[in-house]
């Protein structure tokens, strides 16, 4: 906070004389006024003035040591300091209160039996009551803090759950674009009509793709092996559709197949390369997928030789990287921030997407 010292001072004062505290102190003062009024001989104004003065003196001591000094030595608890400060303040306040209301009296008020008795009564009552009020106030504050903290934990957790749910929903919505499906079916129909022997294998790839890509709600995790199958099916379908513009390779160590991999992770990268790299390019290019383990982390890279990041005009409107933004979110939720996703330029043209996350064997 960069407020001026003046602002900070008024903030402190506002906290010391908070309305919730004044609301407690005032009724107590009023209660005492009523009790004393039965035996009071001097003016009521003096009584009211004194009691309010004592009340606020205690309140001020309580609030002052709540904030000052800013740091306390380890052996001294703040609550103890506050209670002791209140206990010391009360007799002082009573003494000052009596002196102020009896200025110029001769002999001085402490030689007057009646006034001395009044002083003793006030001191006794204040000492009896004020530190206890301080303790009760402190206890109440601790309880408030605890429930506030519980509330903010609860809020944080529900926020996290909402994020996870949103990421999941977006994943489900992103599935199987009609554009992709109908274009692919148009291709398959041509193969079937002309009696091409490729028809069956292409249809198999499409089925393999759809089996995974059609949303299944209760499948939070998958293995890298499944993911690689999905990517291969997708790339085979796309290769059938644009044989003259797309080539691809898939390289994955055998050991990576059993690793845990959030669903659609690799596919999102490959679809992104297809959509923003190869598809907008008149000459097309290649997509190379690699998966490997290095220092207990699973790494995957998808490199394309397509149009590249800078020249994207055709699909820029669809938001280059909304797919990747969503993927980053899903990875963060799955690995609690221990995953990375990077997109860089590939030379001489194209893009390179790389992810890494902890290598964990999927036991389910």
């Amino acid at each position: 906070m960069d407020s001026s010292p003046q602002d900070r001072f008024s903030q402190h004062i506002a906290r010391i004389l908070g309305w919730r505290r004044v609301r407690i102190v005032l009724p107590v003062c009023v209660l005492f006024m009523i009790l004393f009024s039965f035996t009071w001989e001097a003016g009521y104004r003096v009584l009211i003035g004194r009691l309010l003065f004592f009340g606020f003196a205690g309140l001020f001591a309580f609030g002052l040591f709540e904030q000052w000094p800013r740091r306390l030595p380890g052996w001294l608890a703040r609550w103890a300091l506050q209670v002791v400060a209140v206990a010391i303040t009360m007799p002082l306040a009573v003494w000052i209160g009596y002196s102020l209301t009896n200025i110029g009296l001769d002999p001085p008020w402490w030689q007057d039996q009646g006034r001395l008795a009044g002083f003793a009564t006030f001191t006794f009552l204040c000492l009896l009551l004020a530190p206890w009020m301080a303790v009760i106030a402190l206890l109440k504050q601790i309880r408030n803090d605890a429930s506030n903290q519980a509330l903010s934990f609860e809020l944080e957790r529900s926020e996290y759950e909402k994020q996870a749910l949103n990421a999941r929903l977006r994943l489900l919505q992103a599935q199987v674009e009609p554009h992709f499906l109908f274009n692919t079916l148009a291709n398959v129909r041509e193969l079937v009509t002309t009696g091409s022997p490729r028809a069956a294998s292409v249809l198999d790839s499409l089925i393999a793709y759809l089996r995974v890509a059609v949303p299944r709600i209760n499948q939070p995790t998958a293995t890298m092996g499944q993911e690689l199958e999905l990517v291969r099916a997708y790339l085979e379908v796309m290769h059938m559709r644009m044989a003259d513009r797309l080539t691809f390779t898939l390289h994955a160590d055998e050991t990576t197949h059993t690793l845990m991999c959030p669903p659609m992770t690799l596919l999102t990268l490959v679809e992104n390369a297809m959509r923003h790299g190869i598809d907008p390019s008149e000459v097309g290019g290649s997509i190379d997928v690699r998966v490997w383990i290095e220092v207990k982390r699973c790494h995957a890279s998808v490199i394309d030789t397509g149009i590249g990041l800078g020249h994207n005009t055709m699909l820029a409107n669809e938001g280059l990287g909304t797919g990747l933004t969503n993927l980053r979110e899903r990875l963060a939720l799955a690995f609690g921030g221990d995953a990375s996703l990077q997109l860089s330029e590939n030379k001489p043209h194209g893009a390179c997407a790389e992810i890494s996350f902890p290598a964990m064997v999927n036991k389910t």
Partner: protein
Amino acid sequence: MQAQTALIADDEPLLRESLQRMLAQMWPELKVVAVVRNGRAAVESFESLRPDICFLDVHMPGLSGIEAARFIGRRAHIVFVTAYDKYAVQAFDQGALDYLVKPVELARLTDTVARLKVRLNVAQHNAHTDELLEQISARIYKQAAPAYVRWLRVSVGQALRVVSTDEVDFIRAEDKYTLIAWHGQAGELNEGLVRTPLKELLAQLDPEQFVQAHRAIVVNLRAISQVLRGDNETATIHLKSRNDVLAVSRTFLHQFKMM
């Protein structure tokens, strides 16, 4: 009567073959004179072959079907071909344009062929206008048409080439024409002419990309490899893909100072 001719443009080979095969079946007299794989090739083939009908896939790399249709203008009947897309279909319906939805159904193609035959007989071309195509493009691609010219029609001898502004290296004012120097996707160097005067052309290009270097020279900033400062407030521009060295005159030097 002379046989009707047609052009088919689609980026997916099987779908090109599919449409060609279906047309041969439905309309045997129709002569398909060109089957091409993108919008740029469609426009170039159109210019040299002048078919009566153009079947244009909407979604093609580089020059889209919609952009190609704007270049072809009213010189041919255009039939758009699109994969299922709610926005596209709505837009075409509202614009009263001929379109086919992939996978193309025979019944639908029969209707289209019948309509085309009628139109060809009365020599009445379909009603697409630049404005309409722009609206459709905006609906399909969910963005306004780019404010600047992105494709140039360049004459090379008798042939017409469609050049992306990204491929242009520099532009030079000649006597009656303006010379466009560009590199192809395989790195080959080309030069051709447009009729638009340099000044007029410059006004239509993206000022972030095209900058005047000299009274008669405009250069594509992305094509520059380096700018070397010379004596006496001059500089020379060296290009990535060709050996030409362009001079920067004093008037325009400030535009290259930060390079």
